[in-house]
C-alpha cells in the first residue's frame, strides 16, 4: 500500500484485519506510534484480538517482523523508510511460506517490485459531510490504483466508499489499463 498520510490507506489496511480477527489474534506493527486502535475497532476488528506492536528501531524492525510472521495469521505493517529491499524480500518470502496475510504500508516512496501479490496506490480521497463549519466528516471515497498478480497483471483504478462503519465497498471500476503488466 503506497500513499501519503491522509489518503485513507491506514484504515483500509486495518479493515483487512477484521475478518482474520474473528478466529485468531491479529497484529498491527506500528512504526511511528500513531496508529489508533479505535479506527481498527470501527472497521470490525475485534477489540480483544487486536495487539499493537510498536517498533521504531530500524535494526530490530526486520527481526520483530520476522518473529511476528512466524506465528500470526494476519498483520498490518508500517514499513519504515530506510528498510533495505533485501530485508523486505526476505520477509515477503517468509510471509508467503507461512501463509500469513500481510498488509504492508510504505512510509516512504514505495515497496520494491515483486514482493506484493496486490499493490494498492492511493490516488486521492474526497470527503462528504463537512461544509464550511457545518456538519461533520461522514463519508469518504478513496480513489485507488491496483496492480500486480492480484489483478492478473492488469492495472485498474477503482473507488472505495467508507462511511466509518465496518462496511466498506468498492463502488466503481473507473479505468482498466491493459497496457501495463505486473512486475511482481
Amino acid at each position, binding site marked *: 500500500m503506497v500513499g501519503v498520510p491522509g489518503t485513507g490507506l491506514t*484504515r483500509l489496511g486495518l479493515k483487512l484485519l477484521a475478518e482474520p480477527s474473528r478466529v485468531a*489474534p491479529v497484529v498491527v506493527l506500528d512504526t511511528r506510534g*500513531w496508529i*489508533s486502535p479505535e*479506527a481498527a475497532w470501527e472497521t470490525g476488528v475485534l477489540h480483544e484480538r*487486536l495487539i499493537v*506492536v*510498536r517498533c521504531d528501531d530500524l535494526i530490530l524492525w526486520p527481526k520483530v517482523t520476522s518473529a511476528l510472521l512466524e506465528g500470526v495469521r494476519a498483520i498490518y505493517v508500517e514499513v519504515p523508510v530506510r528498510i533495505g529491499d533485501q530485508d523486505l524480500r526476505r520477509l515477503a518470502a517468509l510471509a508467503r511460506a507461512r501463509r500469513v496475510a500481510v498488509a504492508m504500508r510504505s512510509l516512504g516512496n514505495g515497496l520494491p517490485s515483486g514482493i506484493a501479490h496486490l499493490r494498492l496506490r492511493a490516488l486521492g480521497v474526497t*470527503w462528504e459531510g463537512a461544509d*464550511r463549519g457545518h456538519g461533520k466528516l461522514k463519508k469518504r471515497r478513496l480513489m485507488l490504483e491496483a496492480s500486480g498478480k492480484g489483478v492478473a497483471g492488469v492495472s485498474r483504478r477503482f473507488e472505495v466508499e467508507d462511511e466509518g462503519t465496518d462496511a466498506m465497498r468498492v463502488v466503481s471500476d473507473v479505468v482498466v489499463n491493459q497496457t501495463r503488466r505486473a512486475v511482481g
Partner: protein
Amino acid sequence: MWSLTRPDAPSGEPLLVVDDRVTGATKEVLDAGVSLGMPRREAEALAPFATVVVRDVGDETRRFEPVIATVEDLVPRVEAVSPGLLFVPVAGAVRFYGGEEELAARIVKELDVLTGARRGGEALVGIADGPFAARWAAATAQLGEPNVVVDTVSFLFGLDLGTLRESMGGDEMIDTFRWLGISTLGDLARLPRETLASRFGNPGVLAHCLASGDDRMVDPRDIPADFGVEMEFEDPLESLDAVAFAGRNLAERLLKGLRAAAVAPHSVTITAIAAHGPPRERVWRLADPFTEKALSDRIWWQLRAWVETAGVPGGIVGLSIRPSDLSGEGKQLGLLSDETSTIEAERALARAQALLGPDNVIQGRSQGGRMPGERVSWSRWGEPKSDLERDPEAPWPGATPSPSPALVPPRLQPIEVEWDGGMPTRVRMGSRWEPVLTWSGPWRLSPRWWTGERSADRYQLVTSVGAFLCVVSEGRAFLAGVYD
C-alpha cells in the same frame, strides 16, 4: 541420549542429515563449521563435500525402539522425547540398583550389548535433577562413561547460554542476552527473576528457571479416567496407512476432550493391543503441551516402529491414548476461534516482547473521553488489565464524532494553519501549503479549569491530500489526528 546412524548412508563419508535445518552431521562436517539447528542451505554451503540425506523421523523412531525397550527392561515408565532422546525416572531404580552410578553403568552395559548386536548407535547417559539438566548432562558425557551430576545448580551455571536454544525455540532472546554480556547460564541465573520478567515476559522467566535448576514442572491435575480415548478393531490393523488414520483420529478425539476441560497434556501413554502377544505401551513427553500435529506425529512414529519391528504380532486390535501431566495451558475452544493459531500467535508475540520489551507489545481497551487519544486505555499484552481511567458508559457530551482518525499522535503536534476571518484557509504540509477545501467546527472543548486545562476548539479540516483533526488553543493550532 542415543546417536542414530543412517543405514543407507555411505560408510566412512561425511554426512549431513537435514529437514529444513540440520538435525545430524558427522565429525568432519561439524569441523567445517556446521552446527545442529543451522539452516540447511547454510550448512550445505559450509560443507559442500558432505552427502546430504533427508531426515525420516518415522524410520528413526523404528530404529530407536530397541533402545527404548532395552532401557525399559531396566527401569519402567521411560519417557521418549524424540528419536534419540529418552528420559528415565530414576528415583525408584536408584534404590533397586544400589546408586545412581550403578544404575547408569548398568544402562550403559545393556546398551553396549545392543550396540554389539546392531549396526549404529552409541549411548550417552547423564543423571541430574530435572529433564533440562539431565539432557545436558548426557550431552556432555563421554561414550561409556555416564555423567552423574552431583550438584545440578553448579553444573548448569557452567553451561553456555546456547544450551537454552532448544527449550526457548529461537535465538532472538539468547542473542539479546549475549548482547547484554551474559554468556553462561550462571550469569543469567544471578540476575533477579523479576527483572527478566519485566523485560522479557514469560520466556525470560522460563529461561531463568532453567538456568537456576528450577526445571519446568507441569501443574499436575487430576486425570479422570474418561479423558483417555481408545479404539478397537474387528480386523487387526496391519497396514501403515490404516494405523496412521486411526492414530490421527485418536489424537483429535483426545485433544478435543481435553480442551473442553481446559487442560492440555504434556505427556501421553500410547498403548497398542496386539492380536497375538502382550500389549505394548510407550510414554511420550513434550515440554510444551501437545498440539494435534505433535501428538499425531508421535502416535504415527510409535505405531510405525511397532509395526515395522514386528512388535505387534498379528496386527493391532486395540489402541488407546491416555494423557498424563495435564496442565492448565489447555484452553477452551471458542465457537469461532482457532486455538492452534492463537497459541502460535501468542508465541510470536512473546518473541516480539522479548526483543522489544513489554511496553512495546500492547493492547488497547475502549474507554470514555472527548479526544481520540483519551478514548483508548493501553496495557501491556499478557498482563492483567488495570482499571479504566474514564467511564466508557458515561455520555461524554462534545466527544469527537466518528469516524475516528486512524492516526493519533501520542502528544498534540504543532501545525501551521492560516485563518481568514475565523475561517481556516490553508494548512502547511511540510514545505508546501495546502488549501482547506472545507471544514467542520469549531467544537468547543470545555476545560477542567481545576486541573489547569485551557479551553480549545476542534476543527475537522479537509484538504486535497486528506482530512485532519485540529485543535486550536490560545491562538495556536495543533494536529490531534489524521483521518488516514
